[in-house]
């Protein structure tokens, strides 16, 4: 990598310093006396398990949250940052973990919106040309006229990054920007950022769960463990194992379960010529046919936005298909609650807070969504048995390490990784015959990722049929028995994992 060969002449000066920062939410101490420095022109990685407080820390820096205690120094001067506008004025920019695009607006409008100052009267033609030339400097290609709500997760993430880059901040904070990108895309993005730290004197603070990225790009690293700073300093000579240990202390990490030899079961899911449209009425799933057997993981690879979302939505009952035939265990399937329960079909969709939870219900209620009408959890048929539901929730929360284990909390206040664990607990802890899952490890720390992959593999070994839609090729190669590529709403390639040809898959994913 050429960027790495250059050394930064500014390494010594501090661009940002945090001193004794503390933050609590109610009784929960999320940040406990955090102090660290971000050197000018450096690429600084911030690591930590799910719920360690990384997002909270950077939100405090940006003035999105008010810290209870402590101060933030920019260029060695103490700054009062009370809201994000102040932060922008001091040259700080941030890409948030959750998306902050305006859904009803086009990409173009969203990008203009983040200009500072926004022109009083906007000349759309001029803005469009301007943004197109700027975008040409980056490795991204996003259609400017598309509505943000119609973008796939990966595309949204790129727009978020573009938004900040166009503002030309001096310090750029990114909260898990690469979770939804393919490794190649992630490398492109990070490579560009790294170059900018050298050539444009940008300082980058980046939160990520991927050691590969840290090892390849970071100069310095800070590690949070349950709200406390475990390490802050140069990356030099740290190995991934050492970083992992700093992150979790001496907890045990699950290893991916071994693929056992299981007899290929009967056909559980049989899709024939499925066609479905997206929200704006355009065809998104364009005649997909596939068969999935028990005891098998079928991986679907593809760049986000090629119909994966709509396919999963049809199977999970969030979208009705235009035409085509879906059979589960030989019977026609229309994604009703009754059918799902009868066929033991479960789903772990992407963005689970949006797609599989009620954000303002508590953990017990969210865990009860699949089972509250089963005899075991009801009283006199019509009433909920709260005791039983609570006991059920406690059991799952302990088993899947959801943190904090406070039953009455709204699920929307959980960190991203913990929401994922909770939904996973609900969906795969019981008896499952067929599991539909999309990007199940998006946003999870390495411990949780390993745990979930092990769970998926174990489920397969038990004879469950798993449809794994993912943008993470490593994950697909690790877990799948068979792998297919989706492009433009069609399956373009299919092969058993042993015969899968990486080069050919790459080409198919790009539409060649």
């Amino acid at each position: 990598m050429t960027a790495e060969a250059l050394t930064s002449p500014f390494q010594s000066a501090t661009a940002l310093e945090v001193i004794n920062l503390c933050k609590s939410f109610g009784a929960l101490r999320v940040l406990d006396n955090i102090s660290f420095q971000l050197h000018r022109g450096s690429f600084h990685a911030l690591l930590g398990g799910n719920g360690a407080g990384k997002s909270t820390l950077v939100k405090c820096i940006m003035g999105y949250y008010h810290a209870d205690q402590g101060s933030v120094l920019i260029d060695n001067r103490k700054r009062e940052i009370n809201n994000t506008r102040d932060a922008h004025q001091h040259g700080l920019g941030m890409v948030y973990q959750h998306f902050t695009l305006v859904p009803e607006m086009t990409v173009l409008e969203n990008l203009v919106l983040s200009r500072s100052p926004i022109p009083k009267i906007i000349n759309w033609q001029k803005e469009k040309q301007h943004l197109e030339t700027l975008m040409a400097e980056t490795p991204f290609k996003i259609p400017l006229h598309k509505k943000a709500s119609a973008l796939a997760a990966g595309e949204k993430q790129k727009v978020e990054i573009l938004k900040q880059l166009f503002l030309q901040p001096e310090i750029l904070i990114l909260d898990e920007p690469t979770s939804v990108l393919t490794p190649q895309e992630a490398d492109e993005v990070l490579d560009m950022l790294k170059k900018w730290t050298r050539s444009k004197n940008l300082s980058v603070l980046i939160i990520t769960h991927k050691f590969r990225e840290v090892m390849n790009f970071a100069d310095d690293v800070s590690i949070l463990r349950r709200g406390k700073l475990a390490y802050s300093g140069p990356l030099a000579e740290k190995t991934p194992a050492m970083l992992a240990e700093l992150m979790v202390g001496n907890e045990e990490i699950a290893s991916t379960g071994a693929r056992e030899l299981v007899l290929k079961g009967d056909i559980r899911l049989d899709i024939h010529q499925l066609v479905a449209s997206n929200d704006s009425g355009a065809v998104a799933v364009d005649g997909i046919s596939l068969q999935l057997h028990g005891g098998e993981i079928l991986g679907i690879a593809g760049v986000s936005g090629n119909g994966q979302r709509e396919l999963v939505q049809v199977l999970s009952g969030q979208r009705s298909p235009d035409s085509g035939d879906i059979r589960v265990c030989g019977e026609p399937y229309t994604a009703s609650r009754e059918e799902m329960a009868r066929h033991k079909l479960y789903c772990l969709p992407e963005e689970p807070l949006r797609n599989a939870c009620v954000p303002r219900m508590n953990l017990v209620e969210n865990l009860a969504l699949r089972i509250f009408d089963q005899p075991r959890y009801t009283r006199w048929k019509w009433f909920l048995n709260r005791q039983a539901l609570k006991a059920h929730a406690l059991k799952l929360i302990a088993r899947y390490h959801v943190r904090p284990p406070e039953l009455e909390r709204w699920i929307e206040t959980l960190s991203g990784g913990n929401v994922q664990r909770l939904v996973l607990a609900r969906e795969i802890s019981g008896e499952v015959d067929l599991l539909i899952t999309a990007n199940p490890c998006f946003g999870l720390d390495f411990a949780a990722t390993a745990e979930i992959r092990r769970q998926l593999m174990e489920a397969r070994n038990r004879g469950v049929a798993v449809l794994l839609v993912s943008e993470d090729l490593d994950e697909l190669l690790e877990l799948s028995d068979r792998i297919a590529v989706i492009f433009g709403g069609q399956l373009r390639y299919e092969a058993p994992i042993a015969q899968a040809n990486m080069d050919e898959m790459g080409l198919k994913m790009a539409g060649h």
Partner: protein
Amino acid sequence: MTETVLGWWGVPLAILGGAIRASTPYLFVSLGECLTEKSGRTNLGQEGNLVLGAMTAYAVSYLSGSPWLGVLAAGATGMLLGLLHAWVCQFKKVNDIAVGIALMLFGIGVAFFFGKPYIQPTAPHLPAIGFGNWSDIPQVRAALEINVLFLFGLLLAPLLSWVLSSTRWGLMLRTVGDSSDAADALGFSVNGVRMVATMIGGFLAGVGGAFLSLYYPGSWNEGLSSGQGLIAVALVVFARWDPMRCLYAALLFGGAGALGPALQSVGFSSGYYLFNAAPYVLTLILMIATCSPQRTLTGVPGELSITK
């Protein structure tokens, strides 16, 4: 006698005239409400703004002798009520719909209280331009007698459209209305923008009220509005939060409302009440025809408490 000249042609002409005349209050209220809702709040108090505006305009016009001063005063009262709505709604856990209903009743109550002495006297009216003066036929003249406020409304719709799409302020307004998360991240003042939008919305509703009392029907009494403000709020949903479509919706609604009287005037009087229901039936039919469960509604501001 004139019926013999025009015959059934009188019906479309009357509908056209009705559309222009009766649509003006709908137009102003729905444009104002469109702006308010685009910022993420529903203000049901618009009915109160309309009634209070009608009363204020009449009173001021009567006392000062200038109808235009009345219009401005009506707008100002609407703005005040809008400010009150926005101020109350900025507090946590306050529901904008409930506050709107309270303010609607408040506005109507205040109007009735202060309006009693103005039911009898006649105030100077707003001027109209006779675009039909070239014609000898009285129906043509009547239909094309167009009030200046309607012309303002006609210009206002594309203006608002342009402001929303192509100015900084419009972009901010839509951001705040669609995702307060995004607005926070960009450093916009969510409450500030909503306050301004609700006040402008109130102003326009007040002006709509002025039209009622100062032009058509052209007097002040307690049954003047009979829910037109609420219907205009519903028209915004019908128009999918688009100012230009608000204009078309208001015209359509005004025109359909003139159907009953127009038919009666040519001697077709059976089912009079049925034809009076035309606007509502038409709206329902169009609503059903244009929506689809397969697609998400476009243009809905994501922060509205009814869609959230």
